[in-house]
């Protein structure tokens, strides 16, 4: 047994070395940066300054609660950290809901016997196959208030032009729509793979027992898809939470007036616009902790046996 374990370790060694290089080292390096005063003026000679950056982030978090409880609501609304934090959660949640429902819906359709099913499948995978960068810039053009195809289509059905990048709400919706379009094929592909592995005998037995389509979906399809969908949702959450490209490019760095930032764009700006590497590194550790909590939540759900 000892020999077999030793053998396994030997085979794992190359992967462990690569993981140490591309995951552990950057992570630890980021942690170290977060504890230093590394910025433009100390780029060549950063020095250790402990938890100063983390204290600053904590200060932003507790700042509204240092006021009387009656003012908490107003303070939270004014606080830049909570504004960005709330927007990040809204961005992630809305995207995931649509990725999940559209992706699963498309997978259920494609799992049926349809004419030209292969063609539909290829067309639906296209958004995922296209480079995000290209898609985001194309969508930005399509959202132009006067010349964009979306408003032109809306005009044809009598809808007034939508001010996509002049209003905070619509400027949030524009990258959200783009990211829904970009992201649902991932869930679709995963769900389709899962659907094809569900034994048909289960459905036949359920039919014989008198179960209708809705009951079969909730009692057979969803539980059987859980092992594949939960990891996909974890990945989707992390990718969406940290999706810099779409929101940055579609809103042209935060249109209107820096109102469409999420945590990761805020960090990007701190690091590469203001050269605050230490602070940005500390903030990215904070993002990591938030994501870790979310993943722990998924983990708990996945351990619950439902069938």
């Amino acid at each position: 047994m000892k020999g077999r374990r030793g053998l396994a370790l030997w085979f794992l060694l190359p992967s462990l070395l690569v993981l140490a290089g591309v995951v552990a080292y950057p992570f630890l390096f980021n942690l170290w940066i977060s504890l230093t005063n590394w910025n433009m003026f100390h780029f060549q000679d950063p020095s250790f300054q402990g938890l100063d950056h983390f204290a600053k982030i904590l200060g932003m978090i507790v700042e509204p609660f240092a006021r009387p409880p009656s003012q908490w609501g107003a303070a939270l609304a004014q606080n830049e950290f909570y504004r960005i934090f709330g927007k990040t959660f809204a961005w992630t949640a809305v995207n995931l809901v649509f990725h999940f429902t559209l992706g699963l819906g498309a997978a259920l359709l494609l799992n049926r016997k349809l004419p030209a099913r292969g063609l539909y499948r290829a067309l639906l995978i296209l958004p995922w196959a296209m480079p995000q960068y290209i898609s985001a810039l194309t969508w930005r053009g399509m959202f132009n208030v006067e010349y964009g195809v979306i408003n032109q289509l809306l005009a044809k059905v009598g809808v007034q032009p939508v001010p996509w990048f002049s209003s905070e709400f619509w400027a949030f919706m524009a990258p959200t729509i783009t990211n829904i379009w970009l992201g649902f094929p991932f869930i679709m592909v995963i769900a389709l793979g899962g659907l094809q592995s569900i034994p048909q005998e289960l459905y036949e037995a359920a039919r014989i027992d008198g179960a209708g389509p809705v009951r079969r979906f909730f009692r057979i399809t969803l539980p059987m898809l859980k092992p594949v969908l939960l990891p996909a949702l974890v990945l989707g959450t992390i990718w969406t939470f940290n999706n810099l490209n779409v929101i940055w490019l579609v809103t042209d760095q935060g249109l209107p007036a820096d109102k469409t930032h999420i945590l990761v764009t805020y960090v990007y700006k701190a690091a590469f616009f203001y050269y605050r590497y230490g602070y940005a590194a500390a903030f990215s550790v904070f993002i990591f902790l938030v994501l870790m909590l979310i993943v722990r939540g998924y983990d708990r759900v996945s351990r619950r046996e439902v069938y």
Partner: protein
Amino acid sequence: MEPRRAPLSPSRAPAAALAVAALLSALLPAAGGCSRSDRSRTVVVWEQMDPQEQVLFDEHVAQFRANHPEFAGFSIERVHYRVEDLQTQFQTAALAFGGPNLVYGPSDKIGPYSIMGLLMPIDALPGGASELARFQPEALPTLNGRVWGLPDQVGNHLTLVANRALVDSIATDTDTWLRQLRELTVDRDGDGKPEQYGLVFNLLEPFWLVPWVGGFGGGVMDDQARPTLDTPAMAQALGFLSGLKQARVVPLECDYPLADTIFKEGRAAYIINGPWSWQGYREVGIEVALAPLPMVSGTGTWPAPFTSAKCYSINRYLDPATATCTAALLSWLTGPEVQLDLARKLGVQPGDLTAAAAPELQSDPAMIASRDQIAKGRLMPIVPEMRAVWDAMRPFYQSVMNGELEPAAAAAAMQARAVETIEVMHE
């Protein structure tokens, strides 16, 4: 039936695993070693050039290779980045002591790079100090007494560009200009969406706001690198530009690509744009005329766009084996022949004194108009605090253009944001 393979015996297995690991470890350094040896024979240039500049760069490098057979053993690579990507990539590469030999872009990025210690001063390169006398002094990006780049062109300034097919005489003051813009904005089918605009320009970026602040008698930063945004001049400039939108002589939403496209399609009488764009308009058949931005009628002052040089700077972590080739390439790319070629083909102003004095450039009407605009402009500060000023202006300028904020309130908010950002940059 599939033949059964003998399982690997535990005694042979570690040897096999070691062999795999050894093969991997042999291959990986070999790959790295290969790139390292290439690096010492390769001069890499990272740039953020426009397409026409990229074509000319490749031609100029080919000429360099023909003129310098002594560097035949070196390869020269050009890597293109978008404006912000170049900055991000260069900083990231510098963290790993890597990056290109030369980095090319507007001189405003040079301030942060030099403070971060990412650049080598020009005089540290072989023969570098003797190069400096060739240039107009104001074209050289100088910080803390050292020069951090050599320009291949100066100006990089916004100018009024008119489509000659639509504009007979170019307005020289804003009152006349506004009347003209109203006449030139045409909504033929009456759907509220003009088919032709009087003016297009990038309505999102404060680079297009700055000239008008100057036109109303203000500026955005003083000599001590302190922001000066909360001024009546800023409020008036914001009011003037939002007035253009309210008058519907510009599109409701207009970023750079859209403004460029509308003008290229011949659907706008004027565009405000820089030297990087002019040749592109000529190539699509638009007969353009250049003129200084019209004088602000209320103040009698000309708008003052920022002027700057476009420079090549040297990476501090330059491989010493490539230093001589890099120096020769830098000298060629910023030399009079190349600058004159750029001026002829792109209409940009040379920073090299010999090239700038060429008679053909002195008598060319477009070059004269461009020089006139440069003379009315102001040199863009290259201090890193300018970043905070740009970022403070951008959101509140957009808020004014969206009608969400009054100009005076926006000016105050810009100043507060700039001061706050500069403070955190220095923390």
